């Protein structure tokens, strides 16, 4: 590990101004950053811990069932939160897929998202929750929808000094499901990740949201597939059409894990499957 300067600010403002410097990295849970530093793939000159800043963690549910998740909330807490399990099952399932329990007890949801891996396990669940991402900096605060946060692998719209503070989940789903395609049962990275969420009204799909991970340079929503479903009565044929539309929306790569073709096919299969399971959970 290269030597670096370490700060533990106690306010967001202080953290933000430190973070605005060149070659600075934020330390949340450390489960990505520290490994990268040990492998010399991350060589920050300054490391700023967010752990001493109060108020950045915790899950709160309002009367209207909207949920706020602090960026420093441990992934394990997201996984085990009863409200998230109930209203955003796909997100709780995604959280449960990250690493081991030891890792999940350290890793934060903010870190999982800010790292901007297209394969992050919480991202598909946040996409189908239509989460708002609250961001703070020395210049003030702003908020972006999760599907506008990412610009490329490891890239986000975050500007120097900007720090994610919380995720607001304003649209509970009556049924949702996340499937991670992988080889190993646990502690694997997503070959692809698919989440679907539905809200029903009188037997008709009122709205459907489909989030896809590891099938494009950024995590994406399959909006054409969503539009196909909205206002329709669910049938196997309809879900098959949605699966095809979702697959068409992807632009996966071939790599050592699997081929682009396999990823596309699995989006089709797992979109159908997650939609069906989401519908079953309503």
């Amino acid at each position: 590990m290269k030597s670096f300067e370490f700060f533990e600010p106690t306010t967001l403002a202080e953290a933000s101004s430190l973070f605005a410097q060149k070659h600075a990295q934020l330390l949340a849970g450390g489960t990505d950053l520290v490994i990268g530093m040990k492998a010399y793939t991350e060589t920050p000159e300054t490391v700023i811990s967010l752990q001493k800043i109060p108020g950045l963690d915790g899950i709160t549910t309002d009367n209207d069932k909207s949920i706020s998740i602090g960026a420093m909330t441990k992934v394990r807490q997201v996984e085990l939160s009863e409200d998230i399990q109930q209203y955003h099952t796909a997100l709780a399932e995604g959280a449960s897929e990250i690493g081991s329990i030891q890792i999940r007890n350290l890793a934060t949801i903010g870190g999982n998202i800010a790292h901007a891996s297209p394969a992050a396990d919480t991202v598909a669940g946040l996409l189908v929750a239509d989460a708002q991402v609250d961001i703070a900096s020395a210049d003030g605060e702003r908020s972006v929808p999760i599907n506008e946060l990412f610009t490329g692998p490891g890239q986000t719209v975050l500007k120097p000094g900007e720090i994610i503070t919380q995720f607001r989940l304003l649209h509970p789903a009556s049924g949702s499901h996340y499937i991670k395609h992988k080889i190993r049962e646990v502690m694997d990275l997503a070959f692809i990740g698919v989440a679907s969420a539905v809200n029903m009204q009188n037997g008709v799909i009122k709205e459907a949201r489909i989030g896809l991970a590891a099938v494009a340079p950024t995590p994406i929503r399959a909006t054409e597939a969503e539009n196909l479903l909205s206002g329709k009565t669910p049938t196997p044929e309809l879900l098959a059409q949605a699966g095809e539309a979702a697959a068409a929306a992807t632009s996966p790569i071939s790599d050592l894990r699997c081929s682009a073709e396999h990823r596309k096919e699995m989006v089709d299969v797992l979109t159908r499957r997650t939609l069906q399971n989401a519908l079953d959970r309503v």
Partner: protein
Amino acid sequence: MSDYSVVGKKLPRVDAVEKVTGAAQYGADVHPAGMLYGKIVRSKHAHAKILSIDTSEAEKLPGVRAIITQDDVPSGRRVFATDKVLYLGEPLAAVAATDADVAEEAAELIKIEYEVLPVVQDVMESIKSSAPRLHGDETKDGPNRRDINAKIKELSSDQEDDNSDTIRKLKAELEQYSDEVYYNISAETHNEAGDVEKGFAESDVVVEDTYVIPRVHQTYMEPHVSVASADSSGKITVWASTQGPFAIRSGIAGTLGIPLTQINVIGTTMGGGFGGRFGVIITHVPAVLLSQKSGRPVRVQMTREEEFLDGRPAPGCVIKIKTGATKDGHILARQALAFWDSGSVSGASIGSTIRVRGVYKIPNIKIDAYGVHTNKSGTAAYRAPGAPQAIFAGESQLDDIAEQIGMDPVKFRLMNMREEGDAVPAGGSEPKVGYKETLEAVADAAGWWDREADDNQGWGVAIGDWTNGCGPGGVYVSVHEDGSARIFHGSMDITGTDTAITQIIAEILTVPYENVTIRRGDTDSAPYSTGSGGSVVTFTMGNTAKLAAEDARRRILELAAERLNTNEDNLELKDGAVHIVTADPPKSISLGELAAYSLSTTGGPIVGKGSFARQPSTPALAAQIAKVEVDPDTGRTRVLKLVASQDVGFAINPMAVEGQIEGGTVQGYAWAMMEEMQYGDNGNINPGFVDYRVPTSADLPTVESVIVEVPAPNGPYGAKGVGEPPITPTLATMANAVKDAVGIRVTELPIKPEKVVEALKNNGHGA
């Protein structure tokens, strides 16, 4: 067998407490005063000429104490590459510095100029004339050319002229096989018995396929590490994480031209070996050279990435295999042509190709096997080296034959098995081995005969054979004044072998198990011991321990006879004391009293010595059955049941034996389903546990172990080596279960979801 009081019992391991508490000292725990940190500088290319190595910048870095290249190897034996590198990660130099980060930085500062050469990593490409030559231009003939050339040679030596037409024809025929001129061959081996062509002609069913098995890593938990310290007198001490300290001693001596006994190797607790921990040059030699140059102790420890780049994994191979059988189920012929990926050096386990024969009566057999150079690191042993690969091909194909002739796969195997007294191809006759007992035991335990399967579920069976090795060893045992016994020896504990040795000595001396302790010496102090690999330890050291304990018992009875004024014939050693059998009232003397008494006798203290080298071993069989469920849409396979039986001869410690069966089976499962070293344009691309997947406990159910005991004539209490056999059948077991579940024959491992989906599509699924 139930007469024994210590052997045959599930006793806790002698090293359980030190392992569980973390007290055990591994290589990385060794930290002599003044120790430096070594780092090996590695090639960034899979194949390149080395134009220059410039260490000048690195030398200027504060904290750097020594930098070595091949110029610093006085013997000239190749430790570092000089003119050319043959694989990504090949060592070019090494650095020792005052801390690990400085060593790392210095390694980066060493400037190496390369001229990149074309790379070949696939054996089937490497044998072609179009492939870059790794070592030279020598070629070898393939099987048909060999046969024709042999005929030509035979005829040419004949004096009769009328052979010339035939020779001309044969030479023309030779031309047809021009693609059988193989390049980059590192070794070859050929076996033949009977006449395979005749066998195939007489067969009703002939199946031919090509199987591809990937290179896999032993993935021991502890990476290679050694700490070397050369003192001013030239004495060298090496703390080595190794399976064979004595082999490391002679290896270092031979490589560096140092007198053997000027080197002391201290084996540190081993964090897994599986055959991959015998390498001398990987870390030990660089550590010694760095210590000699710096005058300080030096630790060289590999990272996990370095393990993948420059460990010595198990070779992958391509096996073309053909089997013929009659429709009533007799196997008549089997032929195999194998290309083993030996990497940059020779040494892949090509001889194991013969394992395609299995334990079957196959009258006609022909094996041609080649080791092929590729731009990869060399290979080494991995748990029954070569057998899982060959048996995967053989046992997969056997199921296809059984299916074609409509026979149950277990019955088909049972009817073709060799039996006691059958002639063995290598000579002699088949000993009594529990082949049938083992397969029947697993079939019964798994519920094979009334098996059920829902949609997409299937059952697979396979068997694998292996024979433990044997080697020299020495053991001392002393009995102390408190009646306890202490064992002294020099073999590395591998998965409970110290426990087995302790149980054997406790049994014979009748000392309570917990009062027998075992100490391992270093190569300076302990008697020679063979390396802990090849399933040898319990067989070899068990026999040695038995001899030592019997020697001690002789002295004990001698002392007791003297002390009790009686004849040895009247004495019995039992429950930690010597008793006069005939005395009334009973008369006895404890081992402690005898040990105390011995100190003032002419004959001296109770010390038993055992020394042993060789006895013939007996084959062992492992048989396994899996039930799986395949998701035809995603291609993912879930194991529902995995049952493994094994003829272990006699289980000295059944708990440890079950552990071996479970461990080997899981490693076989991993090779079948997920493990694979992958190669891109320039060497290994998955050098870490993110993309080289080893299974976790969530991936499969508890392996159900079934111990079968058909004693081995020369094993201690009938024991056979148990470590290696259980990995041998699992690859085929899994593939056969997948075939049964969804009808696809996977010939290329691992059985990844994508491959299953593709194969199912080709079979019409989802169309």
